[in-house]
């Protein structure tokens, strides 16, 4: 017993799908599926036979004429293919169909206003009679240090001074983090010494005064977090730092950790 699949394979292999051998014709009379396959094969044959194809000889002659003709061989610009044959790029056609012309006008007006606005805000202003001094790079740590110095003079409580030293120490750490790769051993050591002074003396002195003033040790929480972050970061940086910077970064980490532990101890004793 031959299966339908085998029958259909044989049907598709026929040179003339309409000229079916006797053994297949018997099967086709009783099988709708195989009959349908035969019908599709016949249809396909018909379409293939009717495909317009130029004569290969004529095409060859035309090609040779084109190649040997004077002037450039490529005379037409390639265009993007269009499935609808209109010659327009599909997204453009889509936008034309969906966006109303008034919206295009509004968009154009918006672009115009935007461009004019940008130009107006950046227009060359009349030069002042006295030329302005070009601003060079400013040392952020120096400016902040002066601000902290002035702030300490005007602060009235140990808590205010504690916060200033906490911020100052963080800024010194940032400076060390920014320059440790290029700084000499002496330069990075000076930053470590600055950090140590700011934390071990400045911050801790004020913490003790805060406790004497019966301040709530919960106010240490922010500084403890910053110190813990500094200790971790400095320790991590020291692992991959240039040899000249490793000792200084470890010193910063140790100072931060020591101050953090001391503040934590004070806070615990006072029941924060």
């Amino acid at each position, binding site marked *: 017993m031959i299966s339908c699949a085998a029958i259909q394979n044989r049907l598709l292999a026929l040179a003339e799908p309409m000229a079916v051998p006797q053994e297949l014709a018997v099967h086709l009379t009783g099988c709708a599926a195989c009959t349908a396959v035969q019908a599709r094969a016949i249809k396909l044959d018909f379409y293939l036979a009717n495909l317009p194809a130029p004569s290969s000889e004529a095409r060859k002659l035309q090609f040779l004429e084109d190649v040997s003709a004077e002037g450039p061989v490529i005379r037409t610009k390639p265009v993007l293919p269009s499935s609808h044959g209109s010659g327009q790029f599909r997204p453009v056609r889509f936008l034309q169909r969906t966006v109303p012309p*008034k919206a295009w006008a*509004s*968009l154009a*007006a*918006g*672009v115009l*206003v*935007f*461009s*004019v*606005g*940008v130009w107006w*805000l*950046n227009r060359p202003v009349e030069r*002042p009679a*006295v*030329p*302005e*001094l*070009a*601003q*060079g*790079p*400013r*040392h952020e*740590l*120096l*400016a902040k*240090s*002066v*601000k*902290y*110095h*002035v702030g*300490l*003079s*005007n602060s009235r409580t140990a808590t205010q*001074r504690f916060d200033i*030293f906490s911020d*100052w120490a963080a800024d010194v750490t940032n*400076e060390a983090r*920014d*320059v440790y*790769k*290029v*700084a000499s051993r002496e*330069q990075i050591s*000076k*930053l470590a010494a*600055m950090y140590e*002074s*700011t934390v071990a*003396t*400045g911050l801790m*002195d*004020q913490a003790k005064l805060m406790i004497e003033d019966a301040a709530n040790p919960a106010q240490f929480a922010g500084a403890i977090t910053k110190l813990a972050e500094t200790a971790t970061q400095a320790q991590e940086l020291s692992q991959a730092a240039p040899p000249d910077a490793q000792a200084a970064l470890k010193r910063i980490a140790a100072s931060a950790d020591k101050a953090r532990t001391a503040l934590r101890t004070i806070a615990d004793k006072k029941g924060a």
Partner: protein
Amino acid sequence: MIARTLLLLLAAMVLCWSVAAQRPAAKLTAAERLRLLQLNQGLLDELIDSSLKVARTTNPLSLSEEHLSVGLQLSRSLEDAVNRNEPDRASEVAGLLHDVLAKAMIPQLNEASRTIPPSSPDYPRYLTIHRKAHERLAGIADTLPTTGAGWASERVAECRTRLGAAMSQLAPLPTPVVP
């Protein structure tokens, strides 16, 4: 339709304002920061040492002594910048010096002058500090040149004005008491 168009125009104006308002932030390289650190290391050391002392006292005389110390260090940096013909650096330092003088040293020194009578044991020390402040800083605004490339800028002129105005707030030196 008009409302929609106006809204679109308004949105475009807000957008272009925000675009125009954006300025790239000047980010220094590590080498530039290191150069500034080297340049200012002495000032930073002075600021830390002095600030640790400032944090330990509320005495106006001690405070003004520390601020004077920082002010003098800054004034030396200012003179260095002038000598090296660096108007930009000079204006940076002048701005910092102004803050130390106007917001710290002068208020504290004026407070000391009000609260320390000639009979006080602190009076000689006060006189010394006050005299030093006058001698070394009264004419600091004039350190900034008024002519030359970069020095005739608005910013330098403003620094000069602000420094002069700050120092004019310093109490005059007490007249010597003739026995």
